[in-house]
């Protein structure tokens, strides 16, 4: 029986949910459905959409929104906050280490091949010190809850985690539609995230920067699935949203082409993959990208956020070692646990996984977005057999984890409040100091019993509250 976050062990209402439960009862499900329609109309008008790759159909689809907030008490958040910061710090320390002396590899805690042979490892970054020694400036950590006191990390996102626009928009809609819920000021605000992000980005200005750093957001363009988020964040930070064609490199600096001539750029919050940043340094066949950008970066003319090569830290094969990183670099015990993971690349791992595949969740090491995974208990024998063949063909490309008993959160059903599985992604900002907005994105599986919360697979989102007390 999954842990239902609204109830305590005796089936009573937990204190942090008391007020919302009262509100649900007073409004009634019919009333809530009416309000939901209003909310959706607002979302559609603003144009918050999330395109899904490889699914066809409407590329500007609306992501389903659930009205009932997911609530963390102050104490719960305190622990999450510490655990998230700890992890973000260790991940950045690991990145610095693997691009320098590689102490953790020499100590034999992580196999060298796993790092140096990894596609996400960028040899071009070796020996370079990014400003503030920060590689991943926005760390998105996917967390699941399996009991009243157990929070576990599902995966890390060190490159360019998306979804933060939903955190902001969901709260905006909720405060606009239900001001009465926020009157007493118990819900900690999240709307300073854009300001904090901008401050973080300015803190890592390159050595060549004099004066107030000029920050831009680099998007692949309006056809990208997260274009809405890019334009949204650029708007809220008051910075320019640029495409690769708007930039060029000269005299070791990056310039944006404006109507008043070239203007220098100091910090680039890039939402483009490493491969497409600079055809001279990475993929030469890329039509995207700014030639010379990487050289300007390495010579201190501009800062790229996140740093190229930051992806080595959120690789699914490296994930297993994050608790080791925390012990090694910080001398602390991990506050947030990892989920036990079997690596098919090892002999024992492979044997165990193949034998227990029907009980496990198996994933591709380089997959994301819930694609290419197998949920053993929900699959047919034929599907499992086919997946086992794929694993045998390329064992090191797969990992497997036990099927988790994810907690459920109250969700608006057709006639009643129902329980649905959810996860949680907070966004930790790392500059000269660390910043963490109390909240994040809660994704919820809208189908009964489903464990897949990805928006590309029919998941929805809801507002996430952290209570003051």
């Amino acid at each position, binding site marked *: 029986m999954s842990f239902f976050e609204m109830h305590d062990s005796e089936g009573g209402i937990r204190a942090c949910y008391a007020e919302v439960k009262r509100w649900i009862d007073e409004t009634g499900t019919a009333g809530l459905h009416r309000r939901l329609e209003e909310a959706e109309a607002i979302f559609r008008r*603003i144009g918050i959409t999330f395109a899904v790759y490889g699914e066809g159909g409407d590329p500007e689809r609306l992501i389903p929104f659930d009205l009932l907030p997911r609530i963390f008490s102050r104490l719960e958040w305190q622990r999450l906050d510490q655990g998230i910061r700890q992890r973000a710090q260790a991940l950045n320390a690991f990145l610095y280490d693997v691009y320098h002396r590689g102490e953790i590899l020499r100590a034999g805690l992580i196999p060298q091949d796993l790092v140096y042979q990894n596609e996400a490892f960028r040899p071009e970054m070796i020996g370079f010190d990014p400003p503030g020694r920060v590689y991943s400036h926005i760390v998105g950590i996917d967390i699941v809850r399996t009991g009243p006191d157990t929070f576990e990390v599902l995966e890390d996102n060190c490159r360019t985690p998306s979804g933060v626009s939903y955190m902001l928009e969901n709260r905006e809609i909720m405060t606009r539609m239900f001001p009465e819920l926020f009157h007493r000021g118990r819900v900690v605000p999240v709307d300073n995230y854009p300001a904090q992000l901008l401050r973080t980005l300015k803190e890592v200005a390159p050595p060549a920067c004099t004066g107030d750093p000029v920050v831009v957001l680099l998007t692949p363009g309006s056809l990208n699935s997260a274009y809405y988020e890019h*334009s949204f964040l*650029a*708007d809220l930070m008051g910075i*320019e*949203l640029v495409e690769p064609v*708007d930039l060029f490199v000269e005299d070791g600096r990056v310039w944006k082409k*404006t*109507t*008043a001539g070239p203007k220098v750029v100091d910090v680039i919050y890039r939402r483009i993959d490493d491969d497409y940043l600079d055809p001279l340094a990475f993929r030469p066949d890329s039509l995207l990208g700014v030639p010379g950008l990487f050289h300007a970066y390495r010579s201190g003319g501009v800062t790229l956020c996140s740093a190229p090569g930051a992806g080595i830290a959120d690789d699914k094969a490296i994930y297993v070692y994050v608790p080791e990183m925390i012990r090694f670099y910080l001398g602390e015990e991990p506050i947030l646990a990892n989920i036990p993971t079997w690596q098919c690349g090892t002999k024992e791992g492979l044997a165990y996984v193949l034998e227990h595949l029907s009980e496990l969740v198996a994933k591709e090491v380089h997959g994301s977005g819930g694609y290419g995974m197998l949920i053993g208990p929900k699959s047919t024998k034929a599907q499992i057999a086919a997946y086992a063949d794929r694993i045998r063909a390329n064992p090191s490309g797969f990992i497997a984890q036990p099927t988790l008993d994810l907690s459920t959160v109250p969700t608006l059903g057709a006639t009643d409040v129902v329980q649905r599985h959810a996860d949680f992604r907070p966004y930790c900002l790392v500059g000269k100091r660390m910043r963490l907005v109390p909240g994040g994105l809660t994704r919820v599986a809208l189908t009964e019993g489903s464990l897949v919360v990805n928006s590309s697979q029919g998941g929805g989102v809801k507002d996430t509250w952290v209570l003051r007390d």
Partner: protein
Amino acid sequence: MLSRTADNLFWMARYLERAECTARLLTMGQRMAVLPGSAYRDEWRSVLRVTGCEGFLQHEGPVTEADVVGILLLDPENPASIQSCLVRARANGRSVRTKLTQEMWEALNESWRHFEGCAVADALRELPVHLDWVKTRASVFRGTMETGMMRHAGHDFARIGGALERAQMTLRLLDVKYYVLLPETDVVGGGRDHYQWTSVLHALSGIRAYHHVYGGVHTPAQIVDFLMVNRTFPRSVAFCVDQMRTHLVRLAKEHGTRSACNETADELFALLKAGRNGVFIERGLHESVQHCLLLTNRLANEIADSYHF
């Protein structure tokens, strides 16, 4: 402001204006084609000629209404067709979404698929309705821009793009008239010639305004005066030049420097001022129109140069 943003806004407005202007051109073609003896004059060909689209013709011999509607309204391959203009206006707008208001975006977004897969025969049957629809969409867009858009450089670029396109189309309409001009010996202002001249006014929605200015008399000199140098009629060349000058001056102030485009706009202004009272007809209407077109093209290039498009 990013040069690409300025470029996108400039062309977004231009393409939308071009869609409307082409609709007006087709309206004029229709009026002229129903005049007696039009079959001998091949008037539809002149419509294609002024838009530079004669190359899209698939056959020899006289040009039909169906040919022109296919090429100028529906052909997605022809960059000058109304369909292409609507698609391009939207594409330009989409890549600068953050610089548009929600209403402007909706106005663009609702138009672009209207003529997709429409057959020539269907379009012909209800041509005036379709052409009116195009004009309405352009009006809605301009309205949303007028009442909602911030008055920063982006607004200037969009306005300049629209005004430039409109000035060019008025010039082109006058040139159609040139191509079908009757022999010099014909009595000016009477018969067929009269209808041709007034159809130019009709196409530009200027017939009533013209009457208010000049009374009921139609003389070519006065019509040319009205369409080129009158500074109160919004589709006249002079009005559009005034508008461009105003916005170019704003841009020059904002960027702290005047550039070649400001000089060219002034040159156009002076040229039109000196062209009152039939001067353009005396000098040869076609030559004068061509000269103005040349200057507006130069202006467009200079704007792109000055602001690094």
